[in-house]
């Protein structure tokens, strides 16, 4: 041995793969007021809702949608309390299992940034999917511009009762789902 070897960087551990949420999550993941980031009807509250649909256009009644969003002033909220809502603290996060017609809905505040982030889980879906739901009046950003006509799948409409966006797993108007790992910093890349 002539020269001491340079210290090797710690090997990057391989990620644990995902698996489907399956059909039996309803006793575990939902919790009281999970979808009420603010109390229904409270000042400034807005309903964000939609359906989860499969490749035949049929509703997915055993899906779960999670919402993550900024506060109205655009800050990222880092407050505990989502699982035991006190009716005052805005945590920016909520969860909603779909009903028998594939519908989900959140009562929330309008975010201060152009989109909210969504995670989608379902029986039959082998890994979680993530996407964005842009506000109806959000200007096109790099992502929307790159998507062309498919960008419409990421934009909420306002139907007077609130913000509306359907999540289509497959088929015509299939929602654009995102891969955040492709350009991750070297050494910390994932494969999601």
């Amino acid at each position: 041995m002539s020269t001491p070897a340079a210290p090797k960087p710690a090997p990057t551990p391989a990620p644990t793969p995902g698996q489907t949420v399956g059909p039996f999550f309803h006793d575990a993941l939902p919790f009281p007021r999970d979808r009420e980031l603010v109390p229904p009807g409270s000042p400034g509250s807005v309903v964000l809702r939609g359906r989860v649909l499969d490749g035949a256009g049929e509703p997915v009644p055993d899906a779960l949608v999670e919402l993550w969003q900024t506060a109205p002033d655009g800050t990222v909220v880092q407050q505990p309390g989502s699982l035991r809502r006190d009716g005052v603290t805005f945590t920016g996060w909520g969860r909603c299992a779909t009903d028998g017609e594939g519908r989900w809905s959140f009562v929330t505040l309008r975010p201060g940034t152009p989109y909210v982030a969504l995670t989608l889980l379902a029986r039959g879906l082998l890994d979680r999917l993530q996407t964005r739901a842009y506000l109806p009046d959000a200007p096109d950003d790099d992502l929307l511009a790159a998507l062309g006509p498919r960008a419409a799948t990421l934009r909420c409409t306002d139907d007077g009762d609130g913000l509306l966006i359907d999540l289509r797993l497959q088929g015509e108007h299939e929602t654009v789902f995102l891969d955040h790992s492709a350009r991750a910093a070297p050494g910390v890349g994932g494969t999601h």
Partner: protein
Amino acid sequence: MSTPITPEPAPEPVPEPGSQAEVSAEIAALDGTPGRQPRLDYPPYRSSALRHPTQALHPVDPEGLELWAPVFGRRDVDPLEADLTIGGRGEPIGERMIVTGRVVDGAGRPVRHQLVEVWQANAGGRYVHQRDQHPAPLDPHFTGVGRCLTDAEGTYRFTTIKPGPYPWRNHRNAWRPAHIHFSLFGTDFTQRLVTQMYFPGDPLFALDPIYQAVTDPADRARLVATYDHDLTQPEWATGYRWDIVLTGSHRTPREDDVEPDHAEHRAGDAR
């Protein structure tokens, strides 16, 4: 050799539709195909047919909101929720066990004070869930649902009962290997992981289209816990260890990420 006559080659047996043999042949045909995560388009798992995107996931750099995860704290989770064996008035039936491990990000950093949720069948392979019609006994002392927060080293720990395998209707005589469902958050929104933990040496692994949807053998092996006799407690419970690695964190770690109680310290950041 008793006969010199070369027999006609036997025709390839055609697996019976809806049989395990048919599903196993489909599993074999896709085994080893690249990708660390499960294939979303995986025909052996029948209900994935209409529930997988046909378009490739669109690459995007996470930004702003996506570089942060929701925060959970002591307000959210009672420490007793980590013990799935104490919910009833008596002891649940089955093998009591401790399941523990560390949650780390793709750079090996611990994911501290973050929420871990679990759910599972009872020792007989039955969920409390009303959709579970498997005619195995329900256990009045076991709901099969738990939660905890990781500690400052990223360690989670549950006390529970070893779940049984259970039948499902993917195909005729389909059985799931015993597993515990896990739901995890990281420090970034993009690290969200929902998965299943399995037990070493399960004879159902090769037959299961959910486990096998992770087509790289080394990657699906990461879903299997190891028995750890040092965790086993005398006269009480066996011990299993399962470490979980989330995808890489894109956010440069902030100083307060290493604070043991960052959730509380950051309270003033909000709004």
